[in-house]
């Protein structure tokens, strides 16, 4: 109740085996359905729209899953590289209370 955006389990961590098993089922199920739609749309051209819609949705979702977008996978094996913070150390002094030299701008 009163939850927002994307479901009560959204963002909860999952394990690497679960991710890999899920990926396998996801790809197999979608591929099978797409094959059925492709065959079925030959005698029934009205299914072409559904087939194309399914193809686009599958492609977009697969891209997101492979990029682990909105997926909390705290595995050491798949941890992304530490984010590089592009701050020009020459512009900002080590002591953050000091203001940067007048007339200097970050690149």
């Amino acid at each position: 109740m009163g939850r927002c955006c994307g479901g009560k389990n959204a963002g909860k961590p999952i394990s690497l085996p679960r991710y890999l098993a899920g990926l396998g089922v996801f790809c197999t199920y979608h591929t099978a359905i797409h094959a059925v739609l492709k065959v079925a749309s030959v005698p029934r051209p009205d299914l072409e729209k559904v087939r194309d819609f399914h193809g686009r949705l599958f492609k977009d979702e697969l891209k997101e899953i492979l990029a682990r977008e909105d997926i909390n996978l705290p595995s050491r094996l798949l941890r992304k590289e530490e984010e590089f913070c592009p701050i020009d150390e020459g512009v900002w002094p080590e002591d953050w209370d000091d203001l940067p030299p007048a007339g200097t701008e970050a690149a």
Partner: protein
Amino acid sequence: MLILEGNGGACVRLPILTEPFRKLEPIEDGSDVFERRGPAPPTLAPGEYPKVKSNEIALMFSGGVDSTATAVMLAEHYDRIHLVTYRNGYGHYYHHRTAERVDELNRRLGNKFVYSAITIKDYFDEILVNSVIKDYKEYRSGFIWFMGCKMSMHMRSAIYCLEHGLPRMTDGSNSDTDEMVEQALLSLSLIQFFYEDHTVDFGTPVYEVRRDESRQVIKDLGLKMGVQVMDRHLCIQPTCLAGELYYMPYLFFNKRMKHDEPVVGKFIKEKTEICHRVMSEYFASKGVDLDGLLADRREQLAKNQEASA
């Protein structure tokens, strides 16, 4: 895929290969109803509108945990409950399970339930499928399929209420499953406005009821519980292939569903206009003016309210 039920019967029998080829015959020529247990609606004629019956109510019913708990709850307060179930024509199978649940309820609760199974394929085509590629480009999420399907069901439910003279419509939406776009609070609120515009009072009686309580109600009555997998009960309601595919990333990966409220709201508003047009055409095909029917209902409802005050 084959899953065995407690009684040894198979509850999943290769739906992909068999069900799409099962032709559903309408019970009457020109009708979209393919199964009915109970009286047919009165024949509509210009100027002759059905009388509003305040002791009857309609429920969008699948036979699952939430809608069954709703049905049991409604049976305590109403003389007759109209259970309506829909088939969208695109990977939506096993409607016999719903019919079996209706029989169970009638046996346990004294024949209070009438049942209609209706195909909404033509409405769904008009509301979503014919423009699905364009809509996907605009809304960039698969929710359009489910919201479009549910709006087709709600639109047909509004028609059902008008035809049968029912003042109220309900469904088994629950906050425990609000990851489903059609059960999100915003969607339900906008759907409620749609019904209100068509003189039907829409409610979700079990929205705040915990699913464990609903399960207990069903167990206490001795109704079938199906096969429980995590929080879900298989084999007691129809299967939606598209739903299984779409919610898979959420179930497997806990991936956030892309149901952003402004986008969903825009979609519902856009489709509401189409729903109203389809309803007008439905009644026009029966020689009835929708505006006249709505005006008559408003008058009847006002009179009923005065009488009960």
